[in-house]
């Protein structure tokens, strides 16, 4: 490296990024032809430039689906006639004489828009959320959980639940690692470990079945949430759906029995359907380590008729039955 190198660093970055003025390009290229250190630096920046371009291109491919989700949300809000309300407001404002009167009309219009925004419902009836879950035939959702003291063990579960069966598929790095199939009537639990190519077949007692059912169905978690003291968060678009949210910091939310330093959980429910769209919680436990556990329940598909074949254990022929 020579004395020019430090001065050149800015220009090399500009050259690689494509923002260096024509007049300076030649000087920088001459320096690069003579200096190995700066050539390596330029090459590293070029590689990163390619990474950035690829990163944006990847996101660009999802842009259409993001736009579609937004357009669907707009469609839903259009159905509630909110769009037609707006031109009326403009006409009213054209007359200065009616401005004062219009002010009251505008406020009323905004309130109408806000109330009609989610379709038929004006707001979420929180007391009715649990009842709605009971009426749902089946649900599929995702549960993501992380523990601060176990980095690298992050993963998520896709859960299929109906009144008679459940199935839980665990994923790590988007690869399925374990599957659990539970038949509540037959009281059987089949556990498949894909990594080890093995499976277990258990007969469960009544209590174990109930415990598993409670753990898998989101109802228990939501019941617990709604029994805590909570505050309303207002409306927000969550995963493309207009939702109303509540938030609690009640440590009672955690049922592990360990002393809790702080807790925060939020529940977002669709204004249109009254079904939960997203639940998220974070608990920090007392102690030197201050272990934090976070959990997110999302990607809900409520009230769906699940095909019985979804709950039949799919065991590849080369998997071994373990005792």
């Amino acid at each position, binding site marked *: 490296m020579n004395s020019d190198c430090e001065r050149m660093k800015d220009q090399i970055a500009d050259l690689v990024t494509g923002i260096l003025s024509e007049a300076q390009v030649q000087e920088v290229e001459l320096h690069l032809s003579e200096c190995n250190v700066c050539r390596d630096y330029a090459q590293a920046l070029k590689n990163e430039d390619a990474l950035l371009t690829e990163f944006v291109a990847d996101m660009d491919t999802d842009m259409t689906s993001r736009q579609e989700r937004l357009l669907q949300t707009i469609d839903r*809000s*259009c159905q509630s006639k909110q*769009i037609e309300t*707006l031109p009326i407001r403009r006409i009213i404002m054209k007359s200065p004489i009616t401005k004062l009167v219009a002010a009251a009309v505008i406020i009323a219009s905004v309130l109408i828009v806000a109330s009609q925004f989610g379709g038929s419902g004006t707001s979420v009836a929180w007391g009715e959320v649990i009842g709605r879950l009971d009426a749902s035939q089946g649900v599929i959702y995702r549960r993501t959980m992380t523990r601060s003291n176990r980095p690298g063990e992050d993963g998520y579960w896709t859960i299929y639940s109906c009144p008679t069966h459940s199935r839980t598929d665990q994923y790590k790095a988007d690869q399925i690692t374990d599957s659990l199939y539970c038949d509540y009537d037959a009281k059987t639990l089949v556990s498949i470990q894909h990594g080890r190519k093995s499976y277990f077949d258990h007969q469960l007692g009544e209590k174990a079945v109930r415990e598993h059912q409670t753990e898998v169905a989101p109802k228990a978690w939501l019941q617990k949430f709604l029994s805590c003291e909570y505050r309303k968060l207002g409306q927000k678009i969550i995963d493309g759906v207009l939702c109303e949210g509540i938030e609690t910091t009640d440590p009672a939310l955690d049922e592990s029995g360990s002393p809790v330093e702080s807790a925060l959980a939020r529940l977002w429910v669709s204004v249109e359907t009254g079904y939960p769209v997203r639940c*998220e*919680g974070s608990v920090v436990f007392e102690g030197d380590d201050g272990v934090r556990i*976070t959990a997110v329940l999302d990607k809900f598909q409520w009230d769906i008729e699940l095909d019985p074949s979804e709950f039949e254990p799919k065991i590849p022929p080369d998997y071994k039955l373990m005792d």
Partner: protein
Amino acid sequence: MDDRLDENVIRACQKGDKAAYAVLVKTYYKDVFAQCLGMLGNIHDAEDATQEAMLKGLLRIGELHKPDLFESWILQIARNLCIDFLRRQKRMRTSGVKESSRSGLQASDDDTLQRAISRLPQELRVPLTMFYFDGKNAKKIAEKLNISHSGACKRIRQARQQLHELLTERTYDE
């Protein structure tokens, strides 16, 4: 989109033409998303904020008297929403509770580059993200951020240099 078409589309939106809304979304979504991503440093939060900004913009489009200013107007709405979001996050942090909504997703995302970008200061992250989304046009970034061309170039350069340091530091850490 040229100014005249832009104006026609916005006038149509103001009259309640739903098809015109789709045109606006398809034209401006990416710009708004790039800015939100730059400000929030998280794809999922950026998508939420973009949705909210576009919906808010469409609801209030009757208030826009100069259609040629739609782009800066919608970007301003998105900016304000992102600022609100960041304030809420800050309040959560100062009350001792970390925002949890995206932690699970971030933790499972092993994209080194995305993590490094999210560690850049916001004033560098925003122009960098917009620059790459906008076909590397520093002049456009300067216009959108209402700064000089040389100012935009400087921020993009600093962003690239700091990103390089973060990526190199990460490589050494591993």
